[in-house]
Every structure is written in structure tokens, then in C-alpha cells.
């Protein structure tokens, strides 16, 4: 892989219009709910409705004329010679449908699929189906999973564990001047894309085809191939316009894709399933809840000498993506600091809830929340400001992270922190707040300031990118333009626009000369899933490389001048006319320095990191205990910014989701399922809840990203929650260790555990007084 030059072209670095915007603005963009096919039926899913048990029988009530319906059960998969599984990371994890005699592992397991020409006929039929289930004990909390008195997965409910060991942690604690400890908890979070999951399935000859809302077409194809027992030539997946993903359409579309395909095969007609909001929220994945115990050893001057972190995720009933979420969370747990001795133990536990899954940040926001909250507690204990403690411990270029990775990024976190604090007017506000506090003993509103510093690895973790071995193509078209071929999806973040910018500048042509193909597994190579902040930096680099190769081929054929310029359209057309098809492929190669030891969990976990310093100003209403973010500064180093408006939009959108996670978004669990599965009851931020978000980019070009770009999408999810909770501690003088910090949680923190008598009950465990337990 050749390093990129960080140069300004005609497109890169400019905020060109979003490619597909015109159709979206006119209401003409076609999402799955807007697409119908001739003879199409409407499908629905009958779910288990018990947290755990064994399915004994399925009874179809006499009040429904079943001959009008297409009915699919697990028996149909087996009868057709398929395999009843949803292949994802491993081939056998969760079933596509629970069969008679099989274990029901959570309340939202699909059991029966129905289809009918009239969508209104589905609900009566769904209600007429009764499942006979032998109940089994369920594991409904993380405590129960850890206690392992009831085992629902493996031998001890542990789905996966990882460890990082650096230096001699025990010796460092024995010699420590100050030891601190805290337990920090984060709740589940619903992705809440405004477009629910939906898919259409059909048979095209002997090809099983699905169209729909998704992030990862080749994941869906893998699922279809395994379940239907067919090769890639007989399983086709096409992405339609997708109304947001945020990780929530990374894995569930594999299940839904199999379901519509099963119905379509049996019906002999296309079938569409659109989840409504209640089903989507209850049944599909959410962010993993977490519990992290952080112990730290420090010298009195603030130098951290050791970190000992126990990081636990609630994975839900199946393994799904938990091991990769866990690995990212484990690696990010020690933050952007240079600490000589680090131990991290990461575990993903199984419970009897629907599996938790990908959500922007992918485990990192959880472990970063714990460390960044903990560091503010340590700073208070040492009599240091939060910024001074961090400055004392920042990793620098050439320094070593917890996995032993040497930092190659041209990063100066001290300078980034300085810029963020200046933009936030930190010193002046701190003086003002101190004066306010001096004036009034018990104000009705209390203000506070908080910050968080963090990093986020670009692309798949560890050896992930090597295993993916992603491929991108660039091909010449009959009209002389070129077409980018990749399976990376546009889900609102700007994939199509950014790929066109990169290809145009790499080829030295106008963006109008570049088309970006719709992800369709029949037409595009597998450029990997649209996840992990990898689309711009990893796949974009492949776009750049393939474009360079295509141009070089035209130069070699004597159709373009070697020193740049020339008429690409004419050259492409001449090539097609005289030499035949023109297509250049590029496949991922790791940067030459990357070495990763998966067994020891040591080495270069990522090719590069993006870095952030976020600052929040918060106000707490002392009557209602509502916390409100008044001002927010997001400063980050993300390499070269390819498109300033899109990049800023990524940061602002991520910050808003982080504010929701920190303060509002409270998944309420009852009997192993989300009970507030409606937008009325699950509160995400509205236009009146989000403060001004001021975004600052420091740009240090990354030689192995296209034109110097690193990853950006997930980074903004990492910083808001700890910055906001640190600001709440600054405002109230009590440390709240769990999110969401709803008014009930804040009330319990201020007035004593249980004061709210609300659903913040149990919050006592997540609250610490102004001090920190465990001083040495």
C-alpha cells in the first residue's frame, strides 16, 4: 500500500453537494417502505414472548382461514435442505426460527413467519397463534449472569473474555501513593434510526434476492447462503436508500433478510416485512449495557502509575457481535494515556434478553465513560484540575498505549486540549461559576463544567481488516465516465459523496465524471461492512488506489499522458473500443508497521487513531433535577477532513446521540424485554434539547488514509457522556457513576439513594459521595 499525499484537489477538502440529496429533498428517494413489487405479499413475525423455555408446539387457532396465508416455520428450512441458522461471525449462533423442541433464549425470538396480500390481515392471524412452551429459568440481570447459578450460555455465561497486561500492575499498586476505585455503569441505548428495519425478498429464477435497509450487504448474503445452502451466485442482496443505521442495521438485516426470503420462496411471490416502531425497538439490537470497575494508582503529583480495569458487557442471549464489541471496548478502556502498568479484563456475559449489538462506538463509549469519570474523581482527590491530571498523563507521539502500540499519529493532545478549552471559554466560565456559587448558597440552578479526552481506533480491531481483505473496483463506462464499485453503503453519512470526491481527485477529473454504484452483491465486490469508522479511511483508501491503478493502465496503454492531465473520458472510451473492458481492483493491505498478536492482545490494534477533547457546560435544575447541556465543544484530530460539512455533521450527530445516552435515553427492562418500546416513552433529544455544538478539527494527515483521512463516525459518541457527567459532578459536588442520569438518578445522588422512589431505584450503587472509596 502506497502512502497518500495530503494534497488539495478539486473535490477533496471541499463541501460539495451531497450526491443523493436532491432525491431526498424532493421526497423521491426510495426506501424499502416506498418500494412495492407486482404480486407482493406483506409479512409478519410471530415471536416467542417468554424469556426462556423450550418450544413444545405451535397451535394455529380455528378462527383464521390459514389457507389464505403463507406460513413458514423452522421445519420449512430443514425440509428445503437448508441450515436453521443466522451465520454472522460464527456459522451457528442463533437460529433463523425457533423450531419445535428447540430452546427459546429470549422473548423476541422469531418462531413463525406469516404473509398475506392484505397487511391488515396479519395481526388477527398473529394473535391466533399460540405457542406451547415449557418454561426454563432465565437470567435477567448482569448480576445473575455473573453469579452463574443459572447458566444460559456455555459453562459460565461468559460469551468471550479478553485481557490486556502491561507492566507489573500488582507491584505498582503496592507502591502507590494514592489508590482510587469506582464502579461505573451505562445503560442500553436504542439506535432509533427514524426508518425502521424492513426488507423485501423474492426469487429471481433460482436466485434468492433481498432488497432493503441495511449497512452490510455481504453480511446479509452470507446469512442467506448458509441458511439456504446456496453459493454466492444464488444469493443476491441489494441495498435500498437507508434511513439511518448507527450500527442498528449491521446485523439484524441478516435475520430479516432470511425471513423475507423464506416467505418469498414458499409464496412464490415477493414478500415485504416492515417492522413497526414497537417491534423494531423490542426485538432488534441495542447498545450493550456495561459495568466497569476502575482501580487506579497514582503519585501525588497526578502521574498515573497503574490502571486495573474490569470491564463487563451484557451481550444478551446470543454471541452475535459481542466479542468484537468487547475487544474494542477492552482496548479503549485505558484511554489516550501513557500508563506504565495496565491490566484490563473484559468479559461479555450472556443474559436472556434479545442480543445487544453494534451501536456507534461499539464498546468504546462504555469503557471510556468509566475511565473518564474515574479520572475526574482522582483529580478531585489529588486537588488537581481535571485538565491538569490529564495533561500529566497524555500519551504523546512515540509513546506507548496499553497494548504496547507505539503512537505514530502526529498528535499533540495538550495542544488539542488547549484549543478546546479556549473555544469553550473554560477559564472565564469557571471564574463566573465560582462567583455564582459564592453569591448564592442554594441556587435553583447549578452550573458545572466537564471534559473528556479520548481516542478511537480507525477501522476493524486487531487482525480484522486483514481477515476482511476488502476489495474495491473502479471501472470505465461506455460514456467515458468511471464507476466506483464497493459494497459500502450510504446510510446518511455521505459514502457516495466522499467516494466520488476521492475517485475524482485521484483520477484528476470532475466529480461529474464519477458514478458510485448502488451496493448490489451481483455488481460490486465486497468492500467489507459499513461499520467501525472504516468507510472513508479504509475503503476510501481502496477507492483512491483503484483509481490510481485505472489511470496508470490508461497511461501504460498510451491513452493518457504520464505527467497528469489528458481527457479521461476519451481515454476510457478508446480503451473500451480497442482494448476491451477497463476495471481496476484494489485490495486491502495493512500499513507495513502493523503487527498484532491476537492471543496476547498486544501490538497495533489499529492502523491509526482519531483523538478527541470534548467540553460540556451543564445546568442542573435543583427543583426538578433535570440536567441540561448549555454549551458543547467538540475538538478532534481526524486526519485530513475530506468534506467539512459532512464531517461536521458526523460530529454534531454523534454528540447529540451521546447527549441522549448520557441524560435521556432510558431503556426500561421488564421480564427480559424493553417495556418502553415506543417513541412516546423512550426519549431521544429534540431540537430543543441540543445545545450549540461547536466543532473544531485539527488535521494531521494519516499517510495510509485517502488524502490523509482517518476514521470519524464513531469518535463523537465517546466523549459526550463522560464530559456531561463530569460537569454534573462539578455542578453538584457528588459523583454520579451511571447513565442515563435521569432526574431520578440525580435526585438519588443528591438526596440519598432511593429518594426518588422512581425507576432510578438501585441507583445507589451507581453513586459516590464527593470522595472516592479506597484511598491507600
Amino acid at each position, binding site marked *: 500500500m502506497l502512502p497518500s499525499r495530503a494534497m488539495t484537489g478539486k473535490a477533496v477538502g471541499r*463541501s460539495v*453537494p*451531497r450526491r*443523493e*440529496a*436532491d*432525491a*431526498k*429533498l*424532493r*421526497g*423521491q*428517494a*426510495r*426506501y424499502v*417502505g*416506498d418500494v412495492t413489487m407486482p404480486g407482493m405479499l406483506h409479512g409478519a413475525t410471530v415471536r416467542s414472548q417468554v424469556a426462556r423455555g423450550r418450544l413444545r408446539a405451535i397451535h394455529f387457532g380455528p378462527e383464521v382461514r390459514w389457507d389464505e396465508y403463507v406460513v413458514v416455520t423452522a421445519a420449512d428450512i430443514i425440509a428445503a435442505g437448508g441450515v436453521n441458522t443466522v451465520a454472522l461471525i460464527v456459522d451457528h449462533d442463533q437460529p433463523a426460527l425457533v423450531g419445535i423442541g428447540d430452546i427459546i433464549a429470549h422473548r423476541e425470538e422469531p418462531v413463525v413467519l406469516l404473509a398475506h396480500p392484505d397487511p391488515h390481515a396479519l395481526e388477527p392471524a398473529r394473535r391466533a397463534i399460540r405457542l406451547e412452551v415449557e418454561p426454563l429459568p432465565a437470567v435477567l440481570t448482569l448480576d445473575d449472569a455473573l453469579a452463574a447459578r443459572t447458566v444460559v450460555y456455555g459453562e459460565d455465561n461468559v460469551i468471550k473474555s479478553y485481557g490486556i497486561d502491561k507492566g507489573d500492575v500488582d507491584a505498582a499498586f503496592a507502591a502507590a501513593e494514592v489508590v482510587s476505585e469506582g464502579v461505573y455503569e451505562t445503560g442500553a441505548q436504542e*439506535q*432509533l*434510526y*427514524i*426508518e*425502521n428495519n424492513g426488507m423485501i425478498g423474492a426469487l429471481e429464477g433460482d436466485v434468492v434476492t433481498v432488497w432493503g435497509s441495511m449497512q452490510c450487504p455481504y453480511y446479509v448474503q452470507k446469512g442467506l447462503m448458509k441458511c439456504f445452502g446456496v453459493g454466492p451466485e444464488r444469493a443476491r442482496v441489494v441495498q435500498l*436508500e*437507508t*434511513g*439511518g*443505521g*448507527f450500527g442498528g442495521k449491521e446485523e439484524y438485516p441478516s435475520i430479516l433478510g432470511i425471513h423475507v426470503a423464506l416467505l418469498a420462496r414458499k409464496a412464490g411471490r415477493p414478500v415485504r416485512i416492515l417492522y*413497526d*416502531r414497537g417491534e423494531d425497538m423490542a426485538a432488534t439490537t441495542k447498545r450493550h449495557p456495561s459495568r466497569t470497575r476502575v482501580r487506579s494508582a497514582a503519585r501525588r503529583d497526578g502521574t498515573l502509575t497503574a490502571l486495573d480495569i474490569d470491564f463487563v458487557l451484557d451481550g444478551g442471549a446470543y454471541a452475535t457481535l459481542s466479542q468484537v464489541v468487547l475487544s474494542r471496548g477492552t482496548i479503549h478502556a485505558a484511554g489516550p494515556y501513557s500508563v506504565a502498568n495496565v491490566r484490563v479484563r473484559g468479559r461479555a456475559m450472556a443474559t436472556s434478553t434479545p442480543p445487544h449489538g453494534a451501536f456507534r462506538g461499539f464498546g468504546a463509549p462504555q469503557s471510556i465513560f468509566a475511565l473518564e469519570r474515574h479520572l475526574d474523581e482522582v483529580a478531585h482527590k489529588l486537588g488537581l484540575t481535571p485538565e491538569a491530571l490529564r495533561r500529566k498523563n497524555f500519551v504523546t507521539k512515540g509513546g506507548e498505549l496499553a497494548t504496547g502500540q507505539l503512537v505514530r499519529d502526529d498528535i499533540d493532545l495538550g495542544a488539542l486540549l488547549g484549543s478546546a478549552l479556549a473555544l469553550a471559554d473554560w477559564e472565564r466560565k469557571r471564574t463566573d461559576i465560582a462567583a455564582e456559587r459564592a453569591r448564592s448558597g442554594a441556587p435553583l440552578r447549578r452550573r458545572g463544567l466537564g471534559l473528556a479526552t479520548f481516542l478511537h481506533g480507525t477501522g476493524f480491531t486487531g487482525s480484522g481488516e486483514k481477515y476482511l481483505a476488502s476489495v474495491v473496483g473502479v471501472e470505465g463506462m461506455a460514456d467515458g465516465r468511471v464507476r466506483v464499485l464497493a459494497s459500502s453503503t450510504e*446510510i*446518511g*453519512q*455521505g459514502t457516495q459523496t466522499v467516494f466520488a470526491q476521492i475517485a475524482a481527485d485521484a483520477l484528476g477529473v470532475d466529480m461529474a465524471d464519477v458514478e458510485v454504484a448502488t451496493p448490489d452483491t451481483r455488481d460490486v465486490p465486497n468492500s467489507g461492512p459499513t461499520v467501525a469508522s472504516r468507510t472513508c479511511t479504509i475503503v476510501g483508501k481502496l477507492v483512491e488506489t483503484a483509481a490510481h491503478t485505472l489511470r496508470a493502465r490508461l497511461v501504460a496503454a498510451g491513452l493518457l499522458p504520464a505527467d497528469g492531465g489528458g481527457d479521461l473520458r476519451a481515454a476510457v472510451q478508446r480503451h473500451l473500443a480497442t482494448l476491451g473492458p477497463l476495471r481496476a481492483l484494489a485490495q486491502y493491505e495493512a500499513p507495513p508497521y502493523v503487527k498484532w498478536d491476537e492471543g496476547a492482545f498486544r501490538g497495533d490494534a489499529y492502523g491509526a487513531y482519531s483523538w478527541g477533547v470534548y467540553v460540556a457546560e451543564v445546568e442542573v435544575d435543583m427543583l426538578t433535577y433535570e440536567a441540561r447541556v448549555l454549551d458543547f465543544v467538540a475538538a478532534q484530530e481526524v486526519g485530513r477532513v475530506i468534506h467539512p*460539512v*459532512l464531517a*461536521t*455533521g458526523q460530529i*454534531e*450527530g*454523534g*454528540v*447529540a*446521540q451521546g447527549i441522549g445516552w448520557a441524560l435521556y435515553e432510558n431503556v426500561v427492562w421488564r421480564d427480559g424485554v424493553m417495556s418502553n418500546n*415506543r*417513541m*412516546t416513552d423512550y426519549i*431521544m433529544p*429534540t*431540537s*430543543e434539547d*441540543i445545545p*450549540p*455544538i461547536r466543532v473544531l478539527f485539527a488535521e494531521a494527515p494519516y499517510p495510509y488514509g485517502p488524502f490523509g483521512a482517518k476514521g470519524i463516525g464513531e469518535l463523537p459518541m465517546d466523549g459526550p457522556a463522560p464530559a456531561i457527567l463530569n460537569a454534573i459532578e462539578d455542578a453538584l459536588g457528588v459523583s454520579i457513576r451511571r447513565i442515563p442520569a435521569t432526574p431520578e438518578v440525580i435526585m438519588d445522588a443528591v438526596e440519598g439513594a432511593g429518594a426518588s422512589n422512581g425507576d432510578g431505584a438501585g441507583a445507589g450503587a451507581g453513586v459516590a459521595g464527593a470522595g472516592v472509596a479506597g484511598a491507600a
Partner: protein
Amino acid sequence: MSKLEFSVNGRACTVEVHPMKRLLDVVRDDLGLHGAKEGCGEGECGACAVEVDGRLVVSCLVPVGQCAGARVRTVEGLAPDAATLSKVQQAFLQYGGAQCGICTPGMLMAATALLDKVPRPSEADVRTALAGNLCRCTGYMKIFEAVVRALESA
């Protein structure tokens, strides 16, 4: 079934539907206008917002029987023609107000309704006017900017 007459985007329409059918389903299924989206079906997300006689409504909560004789405007009625966007649409394009696009039709209707009534809104006006339209992508900043800047091009 009832026969109902009303206008949509300036064009007269006649539909024969149950009067309790949701306006959202009538514009999408009976009239083939798919711009308005269903995000929640309970009036929370605003993705289905349209105007009825100049008032912004969530069409998932409006029985079509209430629209007899009304003037309905949907996102498809905003742009003057196929080559031109409305000022609000143009500002959304320029300032990054649309990401995944699923909330965009409702957001555009709410923004247009505001600017039709309040020609020089403050940021607070914009925040209040859009509070019934949820966006999960943008964090709203670019939408505020687009709505405020839409005036400058006027």
C-alpha cells in the same frame, strides 16, 4: 368507503376510501406520493408531517375524512419544478440539513410552515418549530443553519 375530494399540491384528487384511513396512507398508497414517511405511527417523530389548509399536521394521526375539501401540501409540492428546489430545500442541500433523508420531508414541511408564518425567525423560534420532528443523524445544528440561511437567499 366514502368518496372524498380534496386537493394535493394544487391538484384536485378524488379517492374512495374508508374515512378513518390515515391521511398518511392515502397520500402514500392511494396517491403514490411516498415523500411523507412513517417513523412511529403515533405522532412523535414528525416524519409524516404535511400541511392541511396551511396547518402543519402529523398525517399518521389524521383520518382522511377530516380532509374533505381541504388543501393538502406534501414535500413533493415544495419544489417549483424538476430543475429547481425551494429556498428551504436549497439551504438544506447547501448547509447539510439532510443526512439519511428519512426525517427530511417532515423537517422541510415544518421549516417551510415556520418561514411562511415567521419571515425572520430567531434560533429559538426554529428550535420550537422543529421540536416535533426528530432527527437522529444531524444533531439538528445543520438544520437550524439551513433554516436561518434559507432567508438569506430570499
